[in-house]
């Protein structure tokens, strides 16, 4: 049997909390870019962005209260994006391993 996308009324308190977190994280990520973390800088920035995006998806977009199918669609989107990004970057990262130009 199917789960139903019932009317789930999210309390306004949750929206307020998510909103505040998003605003705070925006300024945190701006601030943290001025701190010298070396190569970790981009990963920290991306982690914060992923966190922000996750709470938007879960609460603003109601995925937390959604059906299993919705969750599957979201996950497959992320998976395929990773296919695209990481498999291609795999080529970029390993170019030059052999030490022969163009291989």
């Amino acid at each position, binding site marked *: 049997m199917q789960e139903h996308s019932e009317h789930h009324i999210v309390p306004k308190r949750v929206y307020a909390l998510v909103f505040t977190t998003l605003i705070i994280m925006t300024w945190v990520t701006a601030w943290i870019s001025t701190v010298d973390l070396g190569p970790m800088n981009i990963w920290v920035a991306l982690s914060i962005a992923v966190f922000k995006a996750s709470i938007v998806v879960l609460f603003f977009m109601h995925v937390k209260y959604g059906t299993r199918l919705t969750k599957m669609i979201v996950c497959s989107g992320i998976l395929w994006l990773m296919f695209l990004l990481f498999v291609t970057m795999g080529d970029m990262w390993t170019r030059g391993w*052999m030490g022969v*130009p163009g*291989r």
Partner: protein
Amino acid sequence: MPDQSFQLFPEAASSIAGQVDALYAFMVLISALFSLLIAFLIIFFAIKYRHRPGIKPTFKPADDHSIGGMVLEIVWTAIPLVLSMVMFVWGVSIYFTQSRPPADSMEIYVTGKQWMWKVQHMEGAREINELHIPLNRNIKLTMTSEDVIHDFYIPAFRTKADVLPGKYTTEWFKATKTGAYHIFCAEYCGTKHSEMIGTVYVMNEADYSQWLAAGSGEGSMAEQGQSLFNQLGCGNCHASAVNNGIGRGPNLNGLYGSRVDLKDGTAVKADESYIRESVMYPQAKLVAGFDDVMPTFKGLISDEGMLKLIAYVKSMGLKQGAPNTVPPASVTTNSTAPTAGRGAARAATPVTAPTSAGNK
């Protein structure tokens, strides 16, 4: 001219060709077996089990289980998987052999442009749409393009590689049969793609030396590179054997193939692409300990000129006895002042033609 008679199988004229053909034969065999098996099965079943009105079918749904549904599925998953893994490993091993030029390879530079191939030999000989090479020597081509992507393909050698603008690619082979063979551009490159063809002449050693001696009037590539180096005033800043290793720029002596520490803490290997980038985009990879003072030479040096510069940089501080290079002696004949160096290089031009012949 390459052979123009009708054939069904291409000539095999390189050391790798036999290996490629062997894998091909193996795969043709496997494919033929599978195709015939499938063809036989469907024709046999179509006749044997053809529908005859009035005759009750012998099949009951349980039959699929009795012939071992699951077992069959596993068998016809496993057998192709094993065979394909053999093909995979075999294919990769040939590819890696094709990819790594042997250390003693003699170098030739190829520049593609719409729609011709320009070849520069280390000794200075240049040719267009032709490539003369000696028999039984490992040849390494370093290739780049002036415009779009091309692909340097010699079917008789079973080898090809794309030739890209803005970067270098490599291809190597050892010809095992004298004769003339096709060079094709195999990556579609615009209007006259199909006319971007040429001929590779495989010659025995003596003929090759003779040919080489006839065609290198401008001096070796390294020498031409050196004169360009001086024209552009590179030596004003770059330390080299010429100015005793002192300068505002990094020392180029022995640079090629070494590890370079960069300002941002990382390190790179100084290969052809690195040298090219450092000339065209000096700020992209700043060397540790040096200031950002070098201007870009983008637009000032042609792709062929760049290859000459690279040949020169490679020749600097190279160990004695390395094959296929200009002996360091011919490089160090120049005096320190750039102006003088330029003159010296010009003067040196006519004499140096067969210099590297003795290196073979």
